[in-house]
């Protein structure tokens, strides 16, 4: 099986200048390969660097060393670790889907628009984008009366479903899922598991942090242990 994501030699440390320049090494020599249609779960104690790795894979943190090779849907390969800001933005539009644990709310933008935005950014006409967004929100059991409201006042579970819909509405070759079921009830958890299965079936590569052991067992093909650096060194 050919890979969609291939990360190697990743290193990340933080220099805290406000704390006297303390160095905080988090990752060294981290590597990960995920094939099309495969789901890899990151595991390890908190503080081990799972979230840091996810942020590197999304381009939110910059790697100190290493490569993050991504295969775009046209087959071409990009190195996210070397990509310019414009290239990262293009990769996020077309290649990397991301479901974070918390929704960063934009004032005044209704939930439906939040979800439709990844489609309109790719040039899908507004009406079609909103129809697809509404269908996915329905599937995630977000009541229709909430679609036209900005998610700022939504509950944690409602915001997470908006976030999930935004992540799954467009078909990305790579999906990054950070605790996608953390605030969900059993019914919606099943919906998310089905969405993940469908993404795998269409050939997406997925990387996730799943603290819910049952969800992890059901969706992950493989578990990657992320070990804290001091013990690994």
């Amino acid at each position, binding site marked *: 099986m050919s890979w969609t994501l291939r990360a190697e030699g990743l290193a990340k440390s*933080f*220099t*805290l*200048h*406000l704390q006297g320049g303390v160095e905080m090494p988090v990752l060294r020599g981290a590597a990960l390969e995920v094939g099309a249609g495969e789901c890899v779960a990151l595991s390890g104690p908190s503080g081990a660097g799972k979230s840091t790795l996810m*942020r590197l894979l999304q*381009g*939110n*943190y*910059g790697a100190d060393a290493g490569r993050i090779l991504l295969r775009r849907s046209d087959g071409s390969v990009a190195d996210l670790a070397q990509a310019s*800001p*414009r290239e*990262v*933005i*293009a990769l996020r539009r077309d290649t990397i889907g991301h479901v974070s644990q918390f929704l960063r709310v*934009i*004032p*005044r*933008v209704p939930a439906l628009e939040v979800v439709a935005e990844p489609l309109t950014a790719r040039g899908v006409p507004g009406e079609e984008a909103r129809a697809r967004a509404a269908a996915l929100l329905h599937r995630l059991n977000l009541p229709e009366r909430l679609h036209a409201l900005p998610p700022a006042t939504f509950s944690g579970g409602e915001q997470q479903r908006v976030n999930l819909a935004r992540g799954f509405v467009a078909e990305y070759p790579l999906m990054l899922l950070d605790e996608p079921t953390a605030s969900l009830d059993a019914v919606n958890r099943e919906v998310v598991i089905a969405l993940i299965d469908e993404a795998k079936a269409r050939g997406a590569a997925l990387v996730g942090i799943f603290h819910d052991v049952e969800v992890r067992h059901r969706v992950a093909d493989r578990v990657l242990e992320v070990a804290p650096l001091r013990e690994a060194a």
Partner: protein
Amino acid sequence: MNDHPILSASSVTRAFGAVRAVAGVSLDLWPGEVLAIVGESGSGKSTLLRLLAGDVRPDAGTVLYRASSGATRDVHTMGEPARRHLARTEWGFVHQDARDGLRMAVSAGGNVGERLMASGARHYGDIRAEAARWLERVEIPAARIDDAPRLFSGGMRQRLQIARTLVTRPRLVFMDEPTGGLDVSVQARLLDMIRALVADLGIAVILVTHDIAAARLLAHRLVVMRHGRVVEEGLTDRVLDDPRHPYTQLLVSSVLAA
């Protein structure tokens, strides 16, 4: 992806007396891109904006603008008539104080229509209809079209300035602290409006702000300035979430989370 920057500054330097306000700044802006220049008062960010727009001449360095015709023009040697023409047609300016961008005694509709006429529109009915459409777009009630902006609130004036600037669909807009001096509740509305309009029209924007939250909301890319120099630049969320420079770390850690 369009492969020519719309604006390109190299090694731009400017001193006022013994003070080097801007020291050797280079940057590129791409079509449709929003670039925020952040830093504290005195960092040189407003001077840099004026250098980029051609309002202040550099002691050294060049600023090149790639016009819609494809021709590349040096902003500081093109001459005042050419620059004024650009300012009327392909460029726009949003000032912190709306009074600097509006004619306070002219009606709201007239403020918007005037800019249309300056860029060549002639038909009165079309101009008034377009002005009305833009007032609606920036959420100014149609009934206020004949009122002068001196009767408007600060937020409404700023929205009118946005309408006046964007009505001609400029390719490049310079914004200097567009939300400065407004109430917080008014700022959110204005920011969201700017965000939606800029994305919708595909305008390139250089935004000077000391408001990190505004930069996060609006900008694709961030330049952090201190003492006239760029200390850090990059993708907005990466600079804010993974800041490298001590000054950027200080700036980010000083923002209160709501």
